[in-house]
C-alpha cells in the first residue's frame, strides 16, 4: 500500500515537472519579447535592455527555466543593489504589467476562485444527487422524462450564455439584486453574498445537469444489486434502503468525478468569473492574455495544472485504498 501511494505521488511530481517545462518552453518560444513588454510604448531601448538583464531574459532558455524552478523553492531576487526586489518562495516570477510578484497576484485572486468553486460544488452536488435520485425513483414516469429533457439542455448550454441570461434577468430586467460588486466575506458579507449568489447558481445548475444523469444511472444500477435486494428482503424501509445501500454504492464513482471537476474549477473558472466580473484567478489569467503578461500566464497555468494533477492523484489513491485490484495494475 505504501509503495503504491509513494509511486502515485512520485508520478504526480514527474508529471508536474513535465507540465512546468512544457508550459515554460511553449510561452518562451512565442514571438513576443517579454522584456519589451516591461514598459510602455515610448520605452527607451536602454531600459528594455536593462530590464532584460534584470529579469534574466538574456540568458539561454534552459538557464531561465532552471532559475524559474529554483525560484519556486528558494524565492528569487531580481536585479541588484538599490533597485533589487525579491519575490519570496514560492516565486512564480514577476509581473511588470501589474508591478507585483506573480505569487502575490495569485494569492490575492485565489480566495475568490476558491469561494466560488466551493459554493458551486456544494450546491451542484446537492442538486445533482437529489434530482438524480428523484428521477431514478420515478423512472419512466413524466418526472423522469422532464428531468431528462432539462438535463439535456443543461449539459450542453455554454456557461457564458446561461450566466449572462441569469445576470440580465435578475439584475437588469427584474432588478431583484444590485449589480454584483465583489467584496471579501470578512470585509462585507452582504456584498460578498450578492456577488456570489448568481455565479454559484449558474455553475451549480449547469454542472448539476450531468451529475443528475450520473446519479440516476448509478442509482438504477445499484438497485439491481444483490445487497440492495437483501436489504429489501430484510424488511427495511424503502427510505433506509435507498440512503444506506443504494446511494452509498452509487455515489462512490460520482464523488471521484466531482473531485476532478472541482479541481478544474479551482484552477480558474475563466468563463464564470468573466461573466460576473469576479476578481478571481480565471480573470487574472484572461487579463494576462490580453496584456501579454507572460509570467502571470505561466504562473496561472502551472497553478491550475497543480490542482488537476493533485486531484487526479488523490482520486487514484482513494480508489486504490477502496479497491485492491487497482493497486496491482
Amino acid at each position, binding site marked *: 500500500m505504501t509503495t503504491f501511494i509513494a509511486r502515485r505521488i512520485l508520478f504526480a511530481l514527474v508529471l508536474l515537472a513535465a507540465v512546468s517545462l512544457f*508550459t515554460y518552453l*511553449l510561452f518562451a518560444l*512565442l514571438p513576443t519579447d517579454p522584456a519589451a513588454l516591461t514598459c510602455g510604448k515610448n520605452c527607451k531601448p536602454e531600459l528594455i535592455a536593462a530590464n532584460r538583464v534584470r529579469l534574466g531574459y538574456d540568458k539561454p532558455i534552459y538557464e531561465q527555466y532552471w532559475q524559474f524552478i529554483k525560484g519556486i523553492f528558494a524565492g528569487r531576487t531580481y536585479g541588484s543593489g538599490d533597485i533589487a526586489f525579491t519575490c519570496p518562495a514560492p516565486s512564480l516570477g514577476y509581473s511588470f504589467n501589474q508591478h507585483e510578484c506573480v505569487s502575490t497576484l495569485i494569492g490575492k485572486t485565489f480566495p475568490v476562485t476558491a469561494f466560488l468553486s466551493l459554493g458551486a460544488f456544494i450546491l451542484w452536488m446537492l442538486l445533482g444527487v437529489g434530482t438524480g435520485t428523484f428521477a431514478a425513483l420515478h423512472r419512466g414516469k413524466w418526472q423522469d422524462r422532464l428531468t431528462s429533457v432539462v438535463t439535456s439542455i443543461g449539459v450542453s*448550454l*455554454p456557461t457564458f450564455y446561461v450566466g449572462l441570461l441569469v445576470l*440580465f434577468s435578475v439584475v437588469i430586467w427584474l432588478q431583484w439584486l444590485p449589480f454584483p460588486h465583489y467584496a471579501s466575506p470578512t470585509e462585507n458579507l452582504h456584498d460578498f453574498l450578492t456577488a456570489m449568489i448568481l455565479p454559484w447558481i449558474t455553475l451549480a445548475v449547469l454542472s448539476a445537469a450531468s451529475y443528475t444523469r450520473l446519479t440516476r444511472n448509478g442509482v*438504477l444500477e445499484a438497485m439491481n444489486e444483490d445487497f440492495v435486494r437483501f436489504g429489501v428482503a430484510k424488511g427495511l424501509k424503502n427510505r433506509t434502503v435507498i440512503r444506506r445501500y443504494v446511494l452509498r454504492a452509487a455515489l462512490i464513482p460520482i464523488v471521484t468525478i466531482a473531485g476532478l471537476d472541482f479541481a478544474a474549477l479551482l484552477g480558474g473558472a475563466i468563463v464564470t468569473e468573466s461573466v460576473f466580473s469576479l476578481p478571481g484567478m480565471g480573470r487574472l489569467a484572461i487579463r494576462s492574455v490580453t496584456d501579454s503578461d507572460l509570467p502571470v500566464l505561466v504562473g496561472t497555468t502551472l497553478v491550475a495544472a497543480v490542482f488537476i494533477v493533485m486531484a487526479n492523484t488523490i482520486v487514484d489513491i482513494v480508489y486504490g485504498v477502496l479497491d485492491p485490484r487497482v493497486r496491482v495494475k
Partner: protein
Amino acid sequence: MSNTDLATREPQVFGAVESKSPGRLAWERFRRDRVAVIASFVVLFFVCIALLAPLVCKALGINPLTLDRKALNDYGLPNGPFGAISRKHLLGVEPGTGRDILARLIYGARVSLLVGFVSTLLTTVIGVVLGIVAGYRRGKIDAIISRFTDLTLAFPSLLLIIALTRPFTQRLESFGVPEGNPARLTYIVLVLSLFGWVYVARIVRGQTLALREREFVEAARASGAGHWHMVFKELLPNIWAPIIVIVSLSLPGYVAVESTLSFLGVGLLPPDASWGVMLGDSVKYYRADPAYLFVPGVALIVLVLAFNVMGDGLRDALDPKSDRQQLG
C-alpha cells in the same frame, strides 16, 4: 440481452423468421424511439440548411452581408418591436448594421457545424487509433500513450487555447493558410482536437482492454489472425457503439465551445458569423435589443438538444443493455 431479443432470436433456429444482423436490430430499435427520430430530423434539417445556405437565402430573398440602414432608427437600433421583425426580415435585423439576422443565422450554422463536425472527426480518428493501439499492443506503447494522455489532461485547456490564439494563427498564416478567419477556424479546430482526443482514447482503450480477454478474440488469435484482422474484424466492430455515441454527444459540445471562444474574443472576425459570434455580439445589446439575445441562443439550444436526444436514442438502440432501455 433482454427478453425481447431472445424472443425474436429463438425462432431463427427453425427458420420461421428471417435472421437479422445486429445493425438491423439496432436500426429497428432506433426507429421505434419516436423522440429520437424527431431529433434526428431536426439535426438533418440544420445540416441541410447549412449545406444549402446560399440557396436557402436566395429563396428567402435575404443576404447576410447586406446592410439595411432603413431598418434601423437614428440610434442604430432596430426600428420596430422584437428587433424589427418584418416580412422582409423574419427574425429582425442586427443592431448597428441592419444585417438580416435569419441570413446570418443560416450562414452561421455553416461555421458552427463545420467546427463541430471537423473537430469531432479529428478527435474521434486520433482517439480511436491511439486508444486501440494502446489497448491492443499494451506494454511500452500503451505506457507511452497513457503518459501522453495524462500530460494532456494536466493542462488547463481553455486558458491555453485562448493564450495561444494569436501566435499560432500567425504561424498558420505563415504556412500558407489564408489569412483571417480561415486561419482562425483552422486553429480552433486543431487545438480543440489536440485536447479532445484524450477522452475518446481513454474510453476506446478501456473497451479494447476488456475485449482482448473475450473468447472470440482469443479464438481469432489462436487461429493465427494477423494484426489487421484483429483490429478491423474483431475489435473495431465491437466498439462501434460507444464510438457513435461519443460522436453524437461531443459534436454539440464543440459547437458550444466554439461559441464560448467567440465570446472570449478568440472566435471569428466580422463580417462572418457563427452562432457563437452572434451570441457574443448580442450580449452587447442586451438592454437596447433583448430580442437579438434569444435568436442565436434558441437556435443553439434546439440544435444541441436534438443532438443529445439523438445520441441517447442511438445509445439505447446500439447497446440494449445500457440504462434506459432496460430500466426505464
